[in-house]
Each structure stands twice: as C-alpha cells, then as structure tokens.
C-alpha cells in the first residue's frame, strides 16, 4: 500500500568519505514520512551514526544531500536545525545543572520567545515525569532518569523530526519500554522519528519502516512485516543476516 503522507526527511545519495577512500557512509537514500517511525539498523560501525550526524548538520556530506522539512543540509543547515532535534547515543547533560534548569536552557535554544520557553519546559516536565527530582542536580540522576530527561528535551519543542541514536541503550527493561511507548504515542500525534539501533528486536516492535545498513551501505528498506515475509525469517536479526549474505558483503 502506497504511503501518501508527505516526506519530512528525504535522504538522497548521501555519502561521507574520510581520508584515503574510507567511506563511513555511501550512497544512502531513504525518506521518512510525516508521523512515521523510521529506523536504521545495523551493527556497530555500520555507518548509522555518520548518516545521522550528516542529517543533523554535524558532519558535512562528501556527496549527496538530505532535505529536512524542505531545507537542504548543504545549503540551509540553519533551516534544517529549526526542523529537527537530535539525541546522540549515550549523550549526557550538564551535570552541574538542575533538571529543570537544563530543560529551560535547551528550550531557550529552540524557542522564539519567552512564552514558548515556558511552554516547552512544561511539555518536557510532563514527558519526563521526573516530578520534584527536576529540582535536583543532574549529577544525582540515574542513567534512566538522565535518558528520560534528554528524551523530553528532544521532543518538547515538537520538531518535524526527532533523531534518536540508540534511544534505549543502557536502560533497564521498564525504562526502555516506557520510552518506546512514548515514541509511539508521539508519532501517532504526527511527529516523525528517525531511530538508530543495533537492537533489532526493539526496532521490530517500535518502527513503521526499517533500513538495514552495513559497512556504510543501505542494503534494504521496508516494513518489518514485509521484510520478515520477503526473507522468510522469524525476526529482523535473521533478516539482517540474510540481507548481508545476499548482498555478498560479508568478509569486508
């Protein structure tokens, strides 16, 4: 069935080459629709983070382009940054700040006026549900609490697309479940997500579509159910293995 929703993110032949011909990401093309959860899956070093960093305007692409909310990462990075938020893998927060201070600080980066700052902070308080602990310094937070705070920061400004790199890495089952649930609810409200993970079972549960990436190449894109059927596999891990074998890139 064709998805007629407009694309929030269009990645076109995106490549990143480091010195001496080393490609971290090569000719990657995919798109993310409005309200869609798209996941890039692959092992460590597959090129997920490099691709994401290029989309988040942190790294400059060697070739190709990506449009975020219609803004090119090459020609209008400032416009791109207005349309997205990014949560890096294993990111921390400013430990000397209190939770609420951090939310306010980040809200000020995205808001256009004071009242919007207050709105963003209130929204984040609701999302992270940390209550009075928001008055404590972040250095006293557990890993799960920090991750929730960061996730709240990422989605409080209701960006067109939120990019989450390994959103649940290092979290216990309860916290991970809560975050997955939160992502699904927000997506149903129209926010798009680009996730990256090497936890393929998590992705199978949470994402609408997945892109399998290995050695910098995007090898397959599709809905989890479609991919399971296409490769006659029980889960995405098996699909990944079969895709990699099929493309004959093992041993790289």
């Amino acid at each position, binding site marked *: 069935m064709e998805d007629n929703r407009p694309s929030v993110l269009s990645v076109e032949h995106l490549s990143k080459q*480091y010195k001496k011909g080393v490609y971290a990401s090569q000719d990657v093309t995919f798109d993310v629709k409005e309200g869609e959860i798209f996941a890039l899956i692959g092992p460590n070093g597959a090129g997920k983070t490099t691709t994401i*960093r290029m989309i*988040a*305007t*942190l*790294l*400059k692409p060697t070739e190709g382009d990506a449009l975020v909310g219609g803004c090119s990462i090459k020609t209008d990075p*400032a416009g791109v*940054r*207005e349309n*997205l*938020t*990014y*949560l*890096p*893998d*294993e*990111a*921390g*927060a*400013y430990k000397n700040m209190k939770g609420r201070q951090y939310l306010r600080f*980040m809200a000020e*980066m*995205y808001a256009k006026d004071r009242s919007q700052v207050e709105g963003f902070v209130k929204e984040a308080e609701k999302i992270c549900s940390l209550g009075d602990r928001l008055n404590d310094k972040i250095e006293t937070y557990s890993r799960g609490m920090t991750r929730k705070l*960061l996730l709240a*920061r990422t989605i409080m400004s209701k960006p067109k697309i939120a990019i989450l790199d390994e959103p649940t890495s290092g979290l216990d089952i309860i916290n991970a479940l809560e975050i997955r649930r939160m992502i699904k609810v927000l997506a149903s409200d129209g926010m798009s997500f680009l996730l990256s993970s090497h936890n393929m079972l998590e992705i199978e549960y949470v994402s609408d579509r997945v892109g399998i990436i290995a050695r910098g190449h995007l090898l397959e894109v599709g809905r989890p159910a479609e991919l399971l059927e296409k490769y006659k596999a029980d889960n995405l891990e098996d699909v990944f293995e079969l895709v990699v074998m099929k493309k004959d890139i093992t041993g790289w």
Partner: protein
Amino acid sequence: MKFASLLKKELREMLNTQTIFMLLLMLFMMYGMGGMLNKSAEKASEESSRITICDLDDTKFTQSVLMFLEHPTSDMQNEVKTVTLKSDDYAAELDRLDVNSFVIIPEGFTDDINNGKQAKVTYVSRMTSMSMLSNVNVGSETALQLITSAVKTAMYSDFKNRGKLTDDEAALIEAPVTVDECTIVRDKSENISQLILYSSLYSRSLFMPLVVYILILLGSQTMINAVSAEKLDKTLETLLSAPITRLHVISAKMLAAAAVALLNAVVYMIGMNNMNLSPTGDIGEEYTKMIEKLGLVFDFRTYLLIGVQMLLTMLISLSIAMILGAFAKNIKSSQTLLLPLMFVTIVPFMACMFLDISTLPGAVRYVLYAIPFTHTFMASDTVMFGKTELYTAGLIYQAVFLIICMTIAVKIFTSDYIFTAGEFIGRRKKKKHAEEDQ
C-alpha cells in the same frame, strides 16, 4: 608474589607514557635552563673583570690604586678603563661611555686618607631588570671592593709604622671608604642602591610571573576540561544540532573563559598590590619616594599595560586549550594534550625569574620571544624599565598569535574536525585491533 604483582601493576599505572614524557621534558628543560644560567654566570664573571673608573683626584696614590685594580693578585687581571666625565648627568654619561656602571674617585680622596678621614667614592649603575641574575655584581662594583682593599693596605702599613692605633684609627681601618650609590633607571637617577631597590621590588618581580603562570595553568585546564567534557558527554553534539550558530557556541565559551580569566587576573593583581605594600613601607618613606621618582611603582598605567598582556596571554592559552580539547579522546588524554602547553609556559617563566631575557644571546632570545607568554612574563620589566619597543613588539606579536589561534579554533569548531579530530589519532590502533578481531 601477590605483593610484587600489585606493586608492578601500581608502577605500570603510575609510570605511564604521560609521566615518562613529562619527566623527559623536565630533564630537557632543566638542561636548557642550566645552560642559559651558566652562560649568564659566565657573562657576569667576564663583566666583573671590566672596570670603568673616573679618577677626579688623580694623585700618585689613586694612580697606584688603579694599578692595583689592574693586577690585584698575581693570577688576576682586570680590564680597567679610565674615563673622564663631561657632565653630572650620569644617565647621559652611561649612554655616552656605553657601560652599565662606573666608579668616581672624587677630588680630595687622597687628602681624606692622609688626614685619617673616611674617603668617599661614588658608584653609578644602571638598573635594567628585576630578574635575579641581572642584579649580580658587575665590574665597577668589584672595583669598590678592590679600592677599599687597596686603601686598607696603604693605611695598614702607615699605621703600622706609627705604632699603636687609637680607637678612631682602628674604626677607620675597618671601613676606610664609604660609597655613595647612584642608581639610574631609564633617564632618572636617585641616590639609592640597586640592592635596596631590588629588595623592595623583588616580591612583586617574583610574584608577577608566578601569577601569569598560575593563570595560564588554571585557564587552560578549565578550558580543555570544558571542551573535552562537552565533546565526550556529547552535549556538544546536542548543542551544535540546535538552531544556533557554531560561532555563538565557541564565542560564548571563549567569552566566559576570558571573563573568568579576567576576574582571576584582577583578584591576583589586587592581592599582589597588597603584598607589595609591606616591603616598600619597611624601607622608609625617603626610599619609597626615591623609588617613585625612578618610576618603579605599580601605578594605574603599569597595571593597565601589564593587564593587557596578561589578558592576551590568557586568551591565547584558552584558545590553544580549546584547540587541544577538540583532540581529546577522554579526560586522561586531555591532560596529556596539555603537556606541550605547560612546557612552553614553564620555560619562559623560569627564564624570566632568573634572567633578563633581552640580554641573552640571539638564538636563545628569539626562541624565547617566539613563545607568546614570554612577553607577559617580561611585562613588569618592559613596562617599568621603559623598554617600550620590546613591550609594543611583544603586544603586537601576542595579538597576531591570538588571531591565528582563534582562527584555528573557529575552523575546528565549524568543521567536521570537532567530531573527527580525536578519532583520527586512535584510528591506526583501532584498525589494528579490528584486524586482530577478524
């Protein structure tokens, strides 16, 4: 066996590459410093055999004293240069004669000795620096000791022929010559000894480089920790993906660090000012006035000029620390990255404490001048002793150096390097490990 294993493990932890590198650097630095100090000591020794003297008395006795100065002992020979003065403007005379000091034997010197009175000589010297070794005895000061010795010998044989000494004669033979000292600073002269000047100012002259050193150390540590922590915690990625320009991020960091550095500088300056009150107060009001007349006071202008160089030094060290922070892979590596900066700071710091850098041999001097911090370590000397050209050149050099460092820092922060710089350092090692894994 267990203890030996533990000990071995602890040694391996403590005596790491970083420590060994630092030890080697220190060794290298000590050798360098030792060489410079030895050269200065040799120079001082050579200077002490060069005597400039103006004999206004010009008697047989003073001529014999001059001959004694040339050969005080059978194995010692001094180069005695007899000069005539054209005016009482001693500063101009020092310039004209191209020397840093001279001794004047006044008219009536021989008569005083013959009449059993204390004779007087005048010692004129120029003070050009507050560093330790620049204030050691020079030739004409050696001459004073030799003149006293010669007069003592003459008096002793005279008194010996006359038999028993009176109390007055005994006191006279102890100190037959008194010295009127005149110190020149720039074009001003006052009847005060260099020793008093140095002892009243030494606390500040030692304290100033120390303050600069501490500020560089604290500032760069703070900055590299801030940058590396931001990079390693990935808060930098979060920040740089927000709708703000990278230039704002780097400017805010630099401005905040500069403000803290400025605050530090002001606090240290205030502390330093208070530290100096006591020694100046101890030497008495008369001397304090003389020091003021010579211009060796830390007034607003002096503080301002030194402060400007101090601020530039802070900004340079902060921008270097910012650049180095981009290459940090972890907190430990950020400390290792700071080592070269510490090295190039400690060398001019030590050199300025002991030596007047402007008098060092060409190559060494220019190597030290190339380190931008040297100019701030020298600032109290260049400002107070009127070395305006040196101060200005240093200031311009520091400003240019700062612009270059800032440009590099901005370049790194506005490019991929901020995320990839550290990764490239460990890439070869990582590649090797990956190959081993496969």
